């Protein structure tokens, strides 16, 4: 019955310590399935075998006759090691193609392991390329189509995100902060409050979508994990800046756009909304020098922009691939972008969102007019970059939000 002489010896050794245990019903059911006579489990236990051994034998599919033979002192049964003989591709020696990056997940995509199917039909957590069990429980994934989530760039971007990670507590020179005029400090803090809110929320939402994506596209899940981790760092960095220089947290972020994200029913809708927000924020942080008040902020915005550039690269390529593969869904996307633009404009028109930026761009509350002028230019750039990013994904917005149009044409 056992998997080896030593197992039996070990069992006998511990027999003295054996207590009376209930035999789990699962074990009895499994024994019955395998043709074990009633009482054979108890007999095995009485001979000094542990319940662990019995269970191991049952899980290994040892049939009743074999078990009985073993317990009667017959020949030992050795495992068959059937898993050694499964017909997966063998002899793989992945090597780093770029020594600077090391052995990347892209380097693993060789032979059949590099086959990333258009449709993945295994509903379990099976690793792509391994040999499937004949029967598995459905793990509840809902995304099985490459066209929905895939972008080739997520493969290198995952490793690049890891290479380019930074640490908010030690990579920013917090001790260098100097006191700012109160209105300027409060403007920085209000902006940080909003951005910390948005980053945390975005991280939580992306996280909630991870369990929807099947293992067929594990590279996407890996990349999104870096996005989530980046957003955690942004949440933390912005909060730290708000609380490090004589200010505090201000009014919580507006909720209109974020609610739209929460209302997304499918991954493409979610991705469209994040495309919009991430594009606008990327442009904002790329222009961080124009509203940063010190070197720490310049460094922080530059690092955040570098992280967000990866997100944007994923968005553009995923959306382009999606439109190419599913052209019938092109018109539908206009609806999501339209909804997102309308809600984002609501957020933008809130003075608690626009005024801190204008104050920082202008250089103080006495220069609000000049600051608003600069903010108009920044908003224009944000909308233009967004439209350009959509164009890179081969998408022309049919009815760009009229307020966004006004900003572009101002």
């Amino acid at each position: 019955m056992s998997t080896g002489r030593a197992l039996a010896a070990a069992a006998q050794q511990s027999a003295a310590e054996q207590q009376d245990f209930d035999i789990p019903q699962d074990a009895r059911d499994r024994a019955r399935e395998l043709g074990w006579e009633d009482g054979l489990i108890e007999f095995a236990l009485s001979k000094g075998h542990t319940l662990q051994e019995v269970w191991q034998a049952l899980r290994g599919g040892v049939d009743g006759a074999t078990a009985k033979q073993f317990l009667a002192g017959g020949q030992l049964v050795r495992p068959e090691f059937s898993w050694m003989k499964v017909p997966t591709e063998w002899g793989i020696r992945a090597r780093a193609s770029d020594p600077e990056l090391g052995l990347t997940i892209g380097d693993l995509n060789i032979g059949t392991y590099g086959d990333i199917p258009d449709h993945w039909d295994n509903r379990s957590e099976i690793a792509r390329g391994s040999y499937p069990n004949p029967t598995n429980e459905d793990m509840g994934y809902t995304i099985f189509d490459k066209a929905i989530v895939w972008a080739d760039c997520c493969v290198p971007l995952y490793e690049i995100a890891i290479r380019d990670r930074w640490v908010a507590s030690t990579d920013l020179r917090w001790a260098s902060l100097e006191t700012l005029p109160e209105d300027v400090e409060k403007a920085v803090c209000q902006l940080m409050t909003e951005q910390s809110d948005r980053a945390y929320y975005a991280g939580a939402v992306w996280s909630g979508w991870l369990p929807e994506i099947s293992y067929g596209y594990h590279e996407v899940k890996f990349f999104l994990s870096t996005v989530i981790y980046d957003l955690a760092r942004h949440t933390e960095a912005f909060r730290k800046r708000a609380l490090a220089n004589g200010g505090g947290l201000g009014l919580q972020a507006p909720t209109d756009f974020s609610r739209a994200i929460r209302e997304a029913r499918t991954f493409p809708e979610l991705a469209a909304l994040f495309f919009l927000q991430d594009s606008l924020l990327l442009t904002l942080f790329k222009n961080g020098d124009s509203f940063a008040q010190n070197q720490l902020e310049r460094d922080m915005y530059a690092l955040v922009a570098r992280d967000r550039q990866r997100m944007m690269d994923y968005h553009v390529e995923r959306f382009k691939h999606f439109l190419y593969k599913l052209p019938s869904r092109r018109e539908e996307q206009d609806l999501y972008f339209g909804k997102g633009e309308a809600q984002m404009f609501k957020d933008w028109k809130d003075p608690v969102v626009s005024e801190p930026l204008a104050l920082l761009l202008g250089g103080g509350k006495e220069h609000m007019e000049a600051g608003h002028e600069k903010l108009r230019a920044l908003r224009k750039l944000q909308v233009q970059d967004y439209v350009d990013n959509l164009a890179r994904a081969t998408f022309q917005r049919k009815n760009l939000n009229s307020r966004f149009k006004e900003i572009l044409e101002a």
Partner: protein
Amino acid sequence: MAANPITKPGLDLSWLNLYDDAASATPGKKGLTLKEINTGRYSDAARGAGDMTYRMRGAVPRPGAQRFGPNYMSKSDVWSENCVMLYEEATQRQWSSARDIPWNELETLPDEIERAMCQLCTMLTEVEFIAGDTPGQWLPFVSAQDFEAGLFLMSQIMDEARHTDVFRKRALANGGGLLAQGAGLGLRSLIEARDFTEMSVLMHVQAEGFVQSMFRMGELIGQTDADKRIFRMSAQDESRHLAFGVMHLKYVLDTDPERREEIHHYLDKAEGDSAGGGSGDVTFPPVFESLCILLGGGVDKFDEGVQKFLLLRKRQINEYVHRLTVAGLGDRRDRLGPLMAQFVDPA
């Protein structure tokens, strides 16, 4: 159409008068960590009621803020007293599976050993895959009032992605490949959890605890320096996840002692009602057999491997009981499922 407030703005500036208590956190020896900013009205101790709007703790509530759907309103539902420290530790101790493992030092192994290692890695890449999805499933329910717990879970998602990838890399880097799917590992119970604490006890304390005990035997399991390093680096991450779970359980038992029986109930289901060895069960035959080959040093030393496997199992169960005891659930020792109870050392 009304004037576009972006192109023709008025002035409000009311946000300049929301507070007048200056916060000036100063960096400590480890930089400006979450601990340094966890002060005054921004601290977790000053947490108010949850509000379902994702308002970060300490931010001024916005009139008219919309709710985003249910999330946990009570701190004890998700909190762990060490999450602030663990998140910062995670940021400092990130590693790269691409560059921090000496892949070019892998040595050709006997076929049976390579196959055993690849089988183990096939199982581990699945386990770690679920370990990333599971916290993801719960993050939308973690209130921004307890954002440090949320940030920690986000760092865990990153860790688990790296683990999923490093075991896949190992399987494909040394002349092997992936082998049999490790179904039947009790992983579904992790995503079946309907409560954060249930999830945390099953995943952080039980499943990751079992995996951690195994990784700590990596010096015996690993056949090359690269293999041993993989287990060491992964164990370092698992320690954080485990620590979060133990301290979360402790927090729940300290603050909501009426939940004790409920938590026992989850564990009864996971380890007692079924014959399975709990989530992360290593007794699945391909895993058991491959571990025995690796621990023994070959198919011909399988019996030695079985002895060591039983030691591993004993270690897993005793460490599990110890962790539960630290968390305040020491009475679990007397209620363990039969497959675990047989390995427990006398109290």
